[in-house]
Protein backbone atom coordinates (compact mmCIF):
# COMPACT_ATOMS: atom_id res chain seq x y z
CA UNK A 1 0.00 0.00 0.00
CA UNK A 2 1.57 3.22 -1.14
CA UNK A 3 1.67 6.16 1.23
CA UNK A 4 -0.81 8.96 0.71
CA UNK A 5 1.65 11.84 0.49
CA UNK A 6 3.25 10.56 -2.70
CA UNK A 7 0.06 11.20 -4.60
CA UNK A 8 -0.18 14.88 -3.67
CA UNK A 9 2.73 16.30 -5.70
CA UNK A 10 1.49 14.38 -8.74
CA UNK A 11 -2.02 15.73 -8.24
CA UNK A 12 -0.72 19.27 -7.97
CA UNK A 13 1.27 18.94 -11.16
CA UNK A 14 -1.77 17.64 -13.01
CA UNK A 15 -3.97 20.42 -11.69
CA UNK A 16 -1.64 23.33 -12.41
CA UNK A 17 0.32 22.19 -15.45
CA UNK A 18 -1.88 19.47 -16.98
CA UNK A 19 1.23 17.35 -16.75
CA UNK A 20 0.77 14.19 -18.82
CA UNK A 21 3.54 12.21 -17.25
CA UNK A 22 2.28 13.03 -13.76
CA UNK A 23 -1.15 11.82 -14.81
CA UNK A 24 0.30 8.60 -16.20
CA UNK A 25 2.26 7.98 -13.00
CA UNK A 26 -0.75 8.62 -10.79
CA UNK A 27 -2.97 6.24 -12.74
CA UNK A 28 -0.26 3.61 -12.87
CA UNK A 29 0.13 3.69 -9.11
CA UNK A 30 -3.48 2.80 -8.55
CA UNK A 31 -4.49 0.90 -11.67
CA UNK A 32 -4.19 -2.65 -10.39
CA UNK A 33 -5.93 -1.85 -7.16
CA UNK A 34 -8.97 -0.33 -8.83
CA UNK A 35 -8.96 -3.02 -11.49
CA UNK A 36 -9.11 -5.69 -8.80
CA UNK A 37 -11.96 -3.86 -7.07
CA UNK A 38 -13.88 -3.71 -10.34
CA UNK A 39 -13.09 -7.27 -11.36
CA UNK A 40 -14.33 -8.75 -8.09
CA UNK A 41 -17.68 -7.17 -8.80
CA UNK A 42 -17.99 -7.84 -12.49
CA UNK A 43 -16.06 -11.12 -12.83
CA UNK A 44 -15.13 -10.37 -16.44
CA UNK A 45 -11.82 -9.02 -17.65
CA UNK A 46 -12.97 -6.86 -20.57
CA UNK A 47 -15.82 -5.34 -18.61
CA UNK A 48 -13.54 -4.67 -15.65
CA UNK A 49 -11.02 -2.99 -17.95
CA UNK A 50 -13.69 -0.81 -19.55
CA UNK A 51 -15.08 0.28 -16.21
CA UNK A 52 -11.61 0.88 -14.78
CA UNK A 53 -10.82 3.07 -17.76
CA UNK A 54 -13.99 5.08 -17.30
CA UNK A 55 -13.32 5.43 -13.60
CA UNK A 56 -9.84 6.82 -14.12
CA UNK A 57 -11.01 9.19 -16.85
CA UNK A 58 -13.56 10.50 -14.35
CA UNK A 59 -10.85 10.81 -11.72
CA UNK A 60 -8.66 12.91 -14.00
CA UNK A 61 -11.55 15.02 -15.22
CA UNK A 62 -12.67 15.86 -11.71
CA UNK A 63 -9.26 16.17 -10.11
CA UNK A 64 -9.92 19.90 -9.77
CA UNK A 65 -12.61 19.06 -7.25
CA UNK A 66 -10.50 16.86 -5.03
CA UNK A 67 -9.99 18.42 -1.63
CA UNK A 68 -6.93 17.20 0.25
CA UNK A 69 -8.35 18.13 3.62
CA UNK A 70 -11.57 16.20 3.25
CA UNK A 71 -10.28 12.74 2.43
CA UNK A 72 -7.26 10.84 1.16
CA UNK A 73 -6.92 10.49 -2.57
CA UNK A 74 -7.58 6.75 -2.40
CA UNK A 75 -10.82 7.25 -0.49
CA UNK A 76 -11.96 9.82 -3.05
CA UNK A 77 -10.95 7.58 -5.92
CA UNK A 78 -12.80 4.61 -4.46
CA UNK A 79 -15.92 6.68 -4.09
CA UNK A 80 -15.87 7.57 -7.78
CA UNK A 81 -15.29 3.89 -8.54
CA UNK A 82 -18.18 2.68 -6.37
CA UNK A 83 -20.60 5.19 -7.84
CA UNK A 84 -19.69 4.18 -11.36
CA UNK A 85 -19.98 0.47 -10.61
CA UNK A 86 -23.33 0.89 -8.88
CA UNK A 87 -24.51 2.83 -11.90
CA UNK A 88 -23.35 0.10 -14.24
CA UNK A 89 -25.49 -2.40 -12.40
CA UNK A 90 -28.44 -0.12 -12.89
CA UNK A 91 -27.81 0.44 -16.58
CA UNK A 92 -29.57 -1.22 -19.47
CA UNK A 93 -26.30 -2.79 -20.57
CA UNK A 94 -26.18 -4.77 -17.37
CA UNK A 95 -29.83 -5.69 -17.46
CA UNK A 96 -29.61 -7.22 -20.91
CA UNK A 97 -26.56 -9.25 -19.96
CA UNK A 98 -28.26 -10.39 -16.80
CA UNK A 99 -31.28 -11.60 -18.72
CA UNK A 100 -29.12 -13.48 -21.19
CA UNK A 101 -27.24 -15.07 -18.31
CA UNK A 102 -30.40 -16.02 -16.46
CA UNK A 103 -31.74 -17.86 -19.46
CA UNK A 104 -28.75 -20.16 -19.43
CA UNK A 105 -28.57 -20.49 -15.65
CA UNK A 106 -28.64 -23.95 -14.25
CA UNK A 107 -29.84 -24.46 -10.72
CA UNK A 108 -26.96 -23.83 -8.39
CA UNK A 109 -26.04 -26.09 -5.49
CA UNK A 110 -26.97 -24.74 -2.06
CA UNK A 111 -24.28 -22.69 -0.36
CA UNK A 112 -23.63 -22.35 3.30
CA UNK A 113 -21.18 -20.14 5.01
CA UNK A 114 -20.28 -16.50 5.24
CA UNK A 115 -20.64 -13.89 2.55
CA UNK A 116 -16.91 -13.78 1.93
CA UNK A 117 -16.87 -17.50 1.33
CA UNK A 118 -19.63 -17.11 -1.22
CA UNK A 119 -17.65 -14.42 -2.94
CA UNK A 120 -14.70 -16.69 -3.48
CA UNK A 121 -16.66 -18.93 -5.76
CA UNK A 122 -17.64 -17.45 -9.10
CA UNK A 123 -21.18 -18.76 -9.35
CA UNK A 124 -22.29 -17.84 -5.89
CA UNK A 125 -20.50 -14.49 -6.21
CA UNK A 126 -22.90 -13.64 -9.03
CA UNK A 127 -25.84 -14.24 -6.71
CA UNK A 128 -24.37 -11.98 -4.07
CA UNK A 129 -23.66 -9.28 -6.61
CA UNK A 130 -27.24 -9.37 -7.78
CA UNK A 131 -28.46 -8.93 -4.23
CA UNK A 132 -26.11 -6.01 -3.61
CA UNK A 133 -27.60 -4.22 -6.60
CA UNK A 134 -31.00 -4.12 -4.93
CA UNK A 135 -29.96 -1.76 -2.14
CA UNK A 136 -30.01 2.05 -2.23
CA UNK A 137 -26.92 3.81 -3.52
CA UNK A 138 -25.34 4.67 -0.16
CA UNK A 139 -25.74 1.17 1.25
CA UNK A 140 -24.38 -0.23 -2.00
CA UNK A 141 -21.31 1.94 -1.67
CA UNK A 142 -20.74 0.70 1.87
CA UNK A 143 -21.20 -2.93 0.86
CA UNK A 144 -18.95 -2.65 -2.17
CA UNK A 145 -16.17 -0.91 -0.34
CA UNK A 146 -16.23 -3.39 2.55
CA UNK A 147 -16.53 -6.57 0.51
CA UNK A 148 -14.40 -5.82 -2.51
CA UNK A 149 -11.69 -3.44 -1.42
CA UNK A 150 -9.40 -3.47 1.57
CA UNK A 151 -11.04 -0.43 3.08
CA UNK A 152 -11.85 -0.54 6.78
CA UNK A 153 -14.84 1.08 8.43
CA UNK A 154 -13.13 4.39 9.30
CA UNK A 155 -12.17 4.87 5.65
CA UNK A 156 -15.60 3.85 4.41
CA UNK A 157 -17.16 6.31 6.83
CA UNK A 158 -14.97 9.01 5.34
CA UNK A 159 -15.90 8.02 1.80
CA UNK A 160 -19.66 8.15 2.36
CA UNK A 161 -19.48 11.07 4.81
CA UNK A 162 -21.46 9.32 7.52
CA UNK A 163 -20.57 8.46 11.12
CA UNK A 164 -18.74 5.15 11.55
CA UNK A 165 -21.40 3.67 13.82
CA UNK A 166 -24.11 4.29 11.21
CA UNK A 167 -21.95 2.74 8.53
CA UNK A 168 -21.35 -0.37 10.64
CA UNK A 169 -25.00 -0.88 11.51
CA UNK A 170 -26.07 -0.39 7.89
CA UNK A 171 -23.46 -2.83 6.71
CA UNK A 172 -24.35 -5.59 9.13
CA UNK A 173 -28.06 -5.13 8.56
CA UNK A 174 -27.57 -5.36 4.81
CA UNK A 175 -25.34 -8.44 5.10
CA UNK A 176 -27.94 -10.13 7.28
CA UNK A 177 -30.60 -9.41 4.70
CA UNK A 178 -28.48 -10.76 1.86
CA UNK A 179 -27.65 -13.92 3.78
CA UNK A 180 -31.28 -14.61 4.61
CA UNK A 181 -32.35 -13.96 1.03
CA UNK A 182 -29.72 -16.30 -0.34
CA UNK A 183 -30.53 -19.00 2.17
CA UNK A 184 -34.19 -18.58 1.34
CA UNK A 185 -33.45 -19.34 -2.29
CA UNK A 186 -32.24 -22.85 -1.60
Amino acid at each position, binding site marked *: MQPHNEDLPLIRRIRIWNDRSAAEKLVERHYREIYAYTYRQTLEKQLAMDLTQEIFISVLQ*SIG*NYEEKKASFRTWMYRIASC*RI*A*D*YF*RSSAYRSRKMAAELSDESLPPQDGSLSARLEERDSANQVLKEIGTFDS*TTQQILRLKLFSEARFPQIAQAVE*MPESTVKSRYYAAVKKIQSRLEGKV
Partner: protein
Amino acid sequence: MLTVQNVTKRFGSFTALEDINLEFGKGVYGLLAPNGAGKTTLMKMIVTLLFPTKGRILCDGKEILSMGESYREKIGYLPQKFGYYRNDSPRQYLRYLGALKGLERRAAEVRIDGLLEKVGLADVKDKKMKKFSGGMVQRVGIAQALLGNPEILVLDEPTAGLDPKERARFRNLISEFSKDRTVILSTHIVSDIESVANRIVMLKDHSVYCDTDCSSLCGMMGGKVFECSVPQKDADSFEMSHLVISRREETGQTHFRFAQDGEKGLPPQAKPVQPDLEDVFLYIYRED
Protein backbone atom coordinates in the same frame (compact mmCIF):
# COMPACT_ATOMS: atom_id res chain seq x y z
CA MET B 1 -30.70 8.65 -13.74
CA LEU B 2 -30.13 11.57 -11.42
CA THR B 3 -29.17 10.57 -7.88
CA VAL B 4 -29.21 12.95 -4.93
CA GLN B 5 -27.00 11.27 -2.34
CA ASN B 6 -26.91 12.34 1.33
CA VAL B 7 -27.21 15.98 0.34
CA THR B 8 -27.19 18.61 3.07
CA LYS B 9 -27.19 22.36 2.37
CA ARG B 10 -26.37 24.92 5.01
CA PHE B 11 -26.22 28.66 4.68
CA GLY B 12 -24.08 29.67 7.63
CA SER B 13 -25.93 28.41 10.68
CA PHE B 14 -29.21 27.86 8.82
CA THR B 15 -29.88 24.38 7.48
CA ALA B 16 -32.00 24.51 4.35
CA LEU B 17 -31.90 20.78 3.58
CA GLU B 18 -30.79 17.85 5.67
CA ASP B 19 -29.67 14.47 4.38
CA ILE B 20 -31.70 14.32 1.19
CA ASN B 21 -31.70 11.05 -0.71
CA LEU B 22 -33.65 10.92 -3.95
CA GLU B 23 -33.47 9.24 -7.31
CA PHE B 24 -34.92 10.67 -10.49
CA GLY B 25 -35.38 8.43 -13.50
CA LYS B 26 -37.40 9.11 -16.65
CA GLY B 27 -40.81 10.69 -16.20
CA VAL B 28 -42.37 13.63 -14.40
CA TYR B 29 -41.60 14.28 -10.75
CA GLY B 30 -43.67 16.74 -8.78
CA LEU B 31 -41.86 18.51 -5.97
CA LEU B 32 -44.40 19.64 -3.41
CA ALA B 33 -43.65 21.74 -0.39
CA PRO B 34 -44.68 25.05 1.14
CA ASN B 35 -42.53 28.12 0.59
CA GLY B 36 -39.19 28.10 2.27
CA ALA B 37 -39.09 24.34 2.66
CA GLY B 38 -36.09 24.00 0.39
CA LYS B 39 -37.67 23.26 -3.01
CA THR B 40 -35.80 26.02 -4.78
CA THR B 41 -32.56 25.19 -2.98
CA LEU B 42 -32.78 21.58 -4.11
CA MET B 43 -33.51 22.59 -7.67
CA LYS B 44 -30.64 25.05 -7.69
CA MET B 45 -28.30 22.31 -6.56
CA ILE B 46 -29.51 20.04 -9.33
CA VAL B 47 -28.68 22.70 -11.93
CA THR B 48 -25.32 23.52 -10.27
CA LEU B 49 -26.23 27.04 -9.18
CA LEU B 50 -25.53 25.96 -5.61
CA PHE B 51 -23.14 23.33 -4.31
CA PRO B 52 -24.14 20.90 -1.54
CA THR B 53 -22.48 21.40 1.84
CA LYS B 54 -22.38 17.63 2.25
CA GLY B 55 -23.16 14.77 -0.08
CA ARG B 56 -23.26 14.78 -3.84
CA ILE B 57 -25.49 14.68 -6.87
CA LEU B 58 -24.74 12.12 -9.55
CA CYS B 59 -25.86 11.83 -13.14
CA ASP B 60 -25.41 8.26 -14.40
CA GLY B 61 -22.89 7.60 -11.68
CA LYS B 62 -20.77 10.72 -12.27
CA GLU B 63 -20.72 13.75 -10.03
CA ILE B 64 -22.44 16.62 -11.81
CA LEU B 65 -19.97 19.13 -10.42
CA SER B 66 -17.11 17.31 -12.15
CA MET B 67 -18.87 17.00 -15.46
CA GLY B 68 -18.71 20.71 -16.21
CA GLU B 69 -20.28 21.79 -19.45
CA SER B 70 -21.23 18.27 -20.50
CA TYR B 71 -23.76 18.29 -17.64
CA ARG B 72 -25.02 21.78 -18.41
CA GLU B 73 -25.70 20.66 -21.96
CA LYS B 74 -28.17 18.12 -20.58
CA ILE B 75 -30.23 20.48 -18.44
CA GLY B 76 -32.96 23.02 -18.99
CA TYR B 77 -33.88 25.33 -16.14
CA LEU B 78 -36.72 27.73 -15.44
CA PRO B 79 -36.10 29.66 -12.22
CA GLN B 80 -38.83 31.02 -10.02
CA LYS B 81 -38.09 34.66 -10.75
CA PHE B 82 -37.47 34.38 -14.41
CA GLY B 83 -35.50 37.19 -15.99
CA TYR B 84 -35.35 38.56 -19.51
CA TYR B 85 -34.12 41.58 -21.45
CA ARG B 86 -37.04 43.93 -21.83
CA ASN B 87 -36.06 45.30 -25.19
CA ASP B 88 -35.77 41.90 -26.76
CA SER B 89 -38.36 40.02 -28.71
CA PRO B 90 -38.84 36.36 -27.76
CA ARG B 91 -36.93 35.35 -30.87
CA GLN B 92 -33.94 37.56 -30.09
CA TYR B 93 -33.90 36.39 -26.50
CA LEU B 94 -34.09 32.74 -27.46
CA ARG B 95 -31.40 33.23 -30.10
CA TYR B 96 -29.11 34.71 -27.47
CA LEU B 97 -29.69 31.88 -25.00
CA GLY B 98 -29.47 29.34 -27.79
CA ALA B 99 -25.99 30.62 -28.62
CA LEU B 100 -24.95 30.44 -24.95
CA LYS B 101 -26.27 26.91 -24.75
CA GLY B 102 -23.99 26.00 -27.63
CA LEU B 103 -26.68 25.37 -30.22
CA GLU B 104 -25.80 25.72 -33.88
CA ARG B 105 -27.38 28.84 -35.35
CA ARG B 106 -29.59 27.34 -38.04
CA ALA B 107 -30.77 24.41 -35.94
CA ALA B 108 -31.55 26.83 -33.12
CA GLU B 109 -33.63 28.99 -35.46
CA VAL B 110 -35.82 26.05 -36.46
CA ARG B 111 -36.20 24.95 -32.87
CA ILE B 112 -37.08 28.46 -31.68
CA ASP B 113 -39.87 28.79 -34.21
CA GLY B 114 -41.22 25.37 -33.27
CA LEU B 115 -41.16 26.09 -29.53
CA LEU B 116 -42.78 29.50 -29.83
CA GLU B 117 -45.53 27.82 -31.83
CA LYS B 118 -45.96 25.17 -29.12
CA VAL B 119 -46.31 27.72 -26.33
CA GLY B 120 -48.71 29.81 -28.39
CA LEU B 121 -46.49 32.84 -28.97
CA ALA B 122 -45.97 32.42 -32.70
CA ASP B 123 -47.82 35.64 -33.57
CA VAL B 124 -45.79 37.81 -31.17
CA LYS B 125 -42.39 36.31 -31.75
CA ASP B 126 -40.90 39.58 -32.96
CA LYS B 127 -42.60 41.92 -30.52
CA LYS B 128 -40.69 43.42 -27.59
CA MET B 129 -41.18 41.51 -24.37
CA LYS B 130 -41.70 44.63 -22.30
CA LYS B 131 -45.21 44.67 -23.72
CA PHE B 132 -45.94 41.11 -22.66
CA SER B 133 -48.28 40.00 -19.88
CA GLY B 134 -46.92 37.88 -17.04
CA GLY B 135 -48.34 34.76 -18.60
CA MET B 136 -46.69 35.45 -21.93
CA VAL B 137 -43.32 36.05 -20.30
CA GLN B 138 -43.66 32.82 -18.39
CA ARG B 139 -44.31 30.98 -21.61
CA VAL B 140 -41.11 32.39 -23.09
CA GLY B 141 -39.38 31.03 -20.01
CA ILE B 142 -40.78 27.59 -20.62
CA ALA B 143 -39.64 27.76 -24.24
CA GLN B 144 -36.16 28.75 -23.10
CA ALA B 145 -35.93 25.76 -20.77
CA LEU B 146 -36.82 23.40 -23.60
CA LEU B 147 -34.51 25.07 -26.09
CA GLY B 148 -31.54 22.76 -25.79
CA ASN B 149 -33.72 19.65 -25.89
CA PRO B 150 -32.50 18.77 -22.41
CA GLU B 151 -32.53 15.31 -20.86
CA ILE B 152 -33.23 16.82 -17.47
CA LEU B 153 -35.79 19.61 -17.19
CA VAL B 154 -36.03 21.54 -13.94
CA LEU B 155 -38.96 23.92 -13.59
CA ASP B 156 -39.50 26.04 -10.49
CA GLU B 157 -43.13 27.16 -10.24
CA PRO B 158 -43.62 27.09 -14.00
CA THR B 159 -47.35 27.77 -13.95
CA ALA B 160 -47.21 30.94 -11.88
CA GLY B 161 -49.15 33.63 -13.72
CA LEU B 162 -50.75 31.31 -16.24
CA ASP B 163 -54.51 31.20 -16.72
CA PRO B 164 -56.35 27.85 -16.77
CA LYS B 165 -56.18 27.51 -20.55
CA GLU B 166 -52.45 28.17 -20.56
CA ARG B 167 -51.96 25.75 -17.68
CA ALA B 168 -53.77 23.05 -19.63
CA ARG B 169 -51.54 23.71 -22.61
CA PHE B 170 -48.50 23.55 -20.34
CA ARG B 171 -49.58 20.20 -18.93
CA ASN B 172 -49.89 18.77 -22.42
CA LEU B 173 -46.51 20.14 -23.37
CA ILE B 174 -44.89 18.52 -20.35
CA SER B 175 -46.61 15.20 -20.89
CA GLU B 176 -45.43 15.14 -24.46
CA PHE B 177 -41.93 16.20 -23.56
CA SER B 178 -41.44 13.84 -20.66
CA LYS B 179 -41.43 10.62 -22.64
CA ASP B 180 -37.89 9.35 -22.16
CA ARG B 181 -36.80 12.42 -20.18
CA THR B 182 -36.58 13.50 -16.58
CA VAL B 183 -38.82 16.42 -15.65
CA ILE B 184 -38.72 17.85 -12.15
CA LEU B 185 -41.26 20.52 -11.42
CA SER B 186 -42.21 22.30 -8.28
CA THR B 187 -45.48 24.00 -7.72
CA HIS B 188 -48.09 25.06 -5.22
CA ILE B 189 -50.88 24.41 -7.66
CA VAL B 190 -51.62 20.84 -6.81
CA SER B 191 -53.95 20.30 -9.74
CA ASP B 192 -51.09 20.97 -12.13
CA ILE B 193 -49.10 17.97 -11.10
CA GLU B 194 -51.95 15.70 -10.16
CA SER B 195 -52.58 14.78 -13.78
CA VAL B 196 -49.02 14.97 -15.06
CA ALA B 197 -46.67 13.67 -12.41
CA ASN B 198 -45.62 10.05 -12.17
CA ARG B 199 -44.18 10.55 -8.73
CA ILE B 200 -44.59 13.11 -6.01
CA VAL B 201 -41.78 14.13 -3.72
CA MET B 202 -42.80 16.04 -0.62
CA LEU B 203 -40.37 17.97 1.56
CA LYS B 204 -41.10 18.77 5.17
CA ASP B 205 -38.86 20.15 7.90
CA HIS B 206 -35.89 20.32 5.55
CA SER B 207 -35.93 16.64 4.61
CA VAL B 208 -37.82 14.26 2.38
CA TYR B 209 -41.23 13.46 3.80
CA CYS B 210 -42.23 11.00 1.12
CA ASP B 211 -41.37 10.00 -2.40
CA THR B 212 -44.12 7.97 -4.00
CA ASP B 213 -46.71 7.96 -6.74
CA CYS B 214 -49.95 9.86 -6.66
CA SER B 215 -52.34 7.02 -5.92
CA SER B 216 -50.31 5.67 -2.98
CA LEU B 217 -50.11 9.17 -1.60
CA CYS B 218 -53.85 9.63 -1.80
CA GLY B 219 -54.27 6.15 -0.38
CA MET B 220 -52.41 7.35 2.73
CA MET B 221 -55.32 9.61 3.45
CA GLY B 222 -57.91 6.90 2.90
CA GLY B 223 -60.73 7.14 5.41
CA LYS B 224 -59.55 10.50 6.69
CA VAL B 225 -61.37 12.93 4.42
CA PHE B 226 -65.04 13.80 4.88
CA GLU B 227 -67.65 16.18 3.62
CA CYS B 228 -70.66 17.62 5.39
CA SER B 229 -73.08 20.52 5.38
CA VAL B 230 -73.56 22.71 8.39
CA PRO B 231 -76.07 25.53 9.01
CA GLN B 232 -74.45 28.87 8.28
CA LYS B 233 -74.71 30.07 11.86
CA ASP B 234 -72.56 27.14 13.06
CA ALA B 235 -70.08 27.44 10.18
CA ASP B 236 -67.43 29.54 11.92
CA SER B 237 -67.31 27.43 15.06
CA PHE B 238 -67.10 24.33 12.92
CA GLU B 239 -64.15 25.75 11.03
CA MET B 240 -62.29 26.50 14.24
CA SER B 241 -62.69 23.02 15.66
CA HIS B 242 -61.92 21.02 12.52
CA LEU B 243 -59.12 20.78 9.97
CA VAL B 244 -60.97 22.35 7.04
CA ILE B 245 -59.72 21.73 3.51
CA SER B 246 -62.32 23.75 1.67
CA ARG B 247 -65.48 25.69 2.40
CA ARG B 248 -68.34 26.51 0.04
CA GLU B 249 -71.34 28.71 0.81
CA GLU B 250 -74.74 27.60 -0.41
CA THR B 251 -78.24 28.86 0.42
CA GLY B 252 -78.46 28.69 4.20
CA GLN B 253 -75.83 26.00 4.46
CA THR B 254 -72.04 25.91 4.46
CA HIS B 255 -70.53 22.95 2.76
CA PHE B 256 -67.23 21.75 4.28
CA ARG B 257 -64.57 19.33 3.19
CA PHE B 258 -62.33 18.43 6.11
CA ALA B 259 -59.79 15.91 7.36
CA GLN B 260 -59.91 13.95 10.56
CA ASP B 261 -58.00 11.07 12.08
CA GLY B 262 -60.49 8.42 13.09
CA GLU B 263 -64.21 8.48 13.65
CA LYS B 264 -64.33 10.01 17.13
CA GLY B 265 -66.33 13.21 17.33
CA LEU B 266 -67.46 13.01 13.73
CA PRO B 267 -70.66 14.98 13.03
CA PRO B 268 -73.47 12.56 12.11
CA GLN B 269 -74.11 14.09 8.70
CA ALA B 270 -70.48 13.71 7.56
CA LYS B 271 -69.77 11.40 4.63
CA PRO B 272 -66.35 9.95 3.82
CA VAL B 273 -64.95 10.91 0.42
CA GLN B 274 -62.10 9.78 -1.81
CA PRO B 275 -59.04 11.90 -0.94
CA ASP B 276 -57.22 13.77 -3.67
CA LEU B 277 -53.77 15.36 -3.81
CA GLU B 278 -54.98 18.73 -2.57
CA ASP B 279 -56.32 17.06 0.56
CA VAL B 280 -52.98 15.36 1.15
CA PHE B 281 -51.04 18.59 0.70
CA LEU B 282 -53.20 20.57 3.10
CA TYR B 283 -53.25 17.80 5.66
CA ILE B 284 -49.50 17.17 5.69
CA TYR B 285 -48.58 20.84 5.84
CA ARG B 286 -51.28 21.88 8.30
CA GLU B 287 -48.79 23.13 10.91
CA ASP B 288 -46.61 25.12 8.50
